[in-house]
Every structure is written in structure tokens, then in C-alpha cells.
């Protein structure tokens, strides 16, 4: 059973759903960020899989998209975690159920 493209996409879809589960069913803000990063990684896996299995010869477009996506996801994780720290400093909680007002 050599791994076909479908198998890689199934693994990536499973990873995405696990990330979605983490992002939707957790109450701690950092868990939600972990779920979001898992979803982004699943999308990267999709890009690389499609690049690998595409018709040859082709430019490394999928690889470049994945590289930029990793950089952008890192920037977004940094800002998200900084916000978690700032909110914790103000409200003394990271439970997103209690962060339900925009008023400071």
C-alpha cells in the first residue's frame, strides 16, 4: 500500500478536525491557540502533498506557500499569546467563557 494522495489528504483532514475540536471545545485561551495552529499545519500538509503529487515538472509553488504560511502562523501565534498575557494581567483569568465583554 504505497501512500496515495488520498491517504495524505485523509490524514490532513483528520488533523484539521482535531484542531477544530480543540479550538471549539476548550475554555482556556491557550488551548484554542493550539487548535488554531494545528489547523494551519493541516493546511500546510495539504499544500505540500498537492505539490508533491502534481504533474511534473512544476515550480515549487506549494513549498513556497507552506514556507510563508509557517512564517505568518508564527507571527499570529506571537500576537495571540501576547494578547492572552495582556488579558490575564487585566482580568486574572484565561477562561474564554468569562471574557464576554468588550468593556475594559
Amino acid at each position: 500500500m504505497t501512500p496515495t494522495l488520498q491517504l495524505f489528504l485523509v490524514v490532513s483532514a483528520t488533523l484539521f478536525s482535531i484542531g477544530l475540536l480543540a479550538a471549539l471545545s476548550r475554555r482556556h485561551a491557550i488551548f484554542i491557540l493550539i487548535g488554531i495552529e494545528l489547523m494551519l499545519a493541516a493546511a500546510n500538509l495539504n499544500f505540500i502533498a498537492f505539490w508533491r503529487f502534481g504533474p511534473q515538472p512544476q515550480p515549487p509553488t506549494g513549498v513556497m506557500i507552506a514556507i510563508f504560511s509557517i512564517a505568518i502562523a508564527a507571527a499570529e501565534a506571537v500576537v495571540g499569546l501576547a494578547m492572552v498575557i495582556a488579558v490575564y494581567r487585566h482580568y486574572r483569568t484565561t477562561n474564554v467563557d468569562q471574557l464576554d465583554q468588550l468593556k475594559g
Partner: protein
Amino acid sequence: MNSAAFVVIAILTLAAALAAASLPKLIHAALSFAVAFIGIAAFFFLLGAEFVGLVQVFVYVGAVAVLIVFTILLTRRDVQDTGKPNRGGAIIAIAVFGGLLWAILKTSALSIAAPQIEALTVKRIGGVLMTDYVWPLQCVGLLLTAALIGALILVMEDRNEG
């Protein structure tokens, strides 16, 4: 492509991701998150994109996972996720997974084997980055600078108040 390697890496990655999504203690989830990303980097190596695999290890495991551990350190009061599990979230996740699985298995054009490719060298990636992708490269540099400055401003304490 080695199918035994694929199965081992797939089991490792999915188990670690499931652990990251469901473990109650935050630090355990953060460490499983790091293992899941090592598994995904192994997938990139299997697919022939070694540079992206190494970038993944450096950036995600080396920076993002460490950042998460530091943030857990700084927000120490609730390190555990308490409360009953969210049924609606689980249902939505299973529904999305079912939809994606149906779409993937329905498309017969996707059950193809890997063609032979020439190895993607870092020299080629560098050349493409500097010629075709030079504008996205500059934009990502700007974005990273802005994110860094923004994060610093967000966590800097106000020393001028009162």
C-alpha cells in the same frame, strides 16, 4: 515512498494531536503539541520537502511551542481546563471531518501514486524566493517586524500610571 514510514508517522502525529486537543493539563497538551509538529515535519520529509520540514521544526517546535510554555508560566492561575466537555464543538468537528472525508474519497482523481520528482534543493528555493517571490518575502519581513513590535507593546507594563 515508504508505506511503513507513512503509517508510523501518521499514527504518531494523530495521536499527539488528539492528546493536545483532549488532555486536561495545559503543559501536557503543550508538549504533545510539540510532538505533533515533529510528526508533521516528518511528513514533510517523507514528501520530499526537507527544507520546509526543517523550517517547521525550527519555527513551530523551537519557537511557538516554547512561547506557549512561557505563556503557561506567565498565566499560572488556571493551568487546567475544567468544566464539562462541549458537545456542540465535538459534533461540529465530527461533521466537518465527515464532510471532508466524503469529498476526498469521492474524487477519484486523487488516488494517484507519487511521481518521480527531481530533488528540491535549497538553492532552488532561494533562487525562487529572490526572483518570483521577492515581494511576498519583503511583506512577510514587514509582517514579522510589526508582529514583534505589537507583541512587545501588548505585554509591556505601564510604568507611567499613578
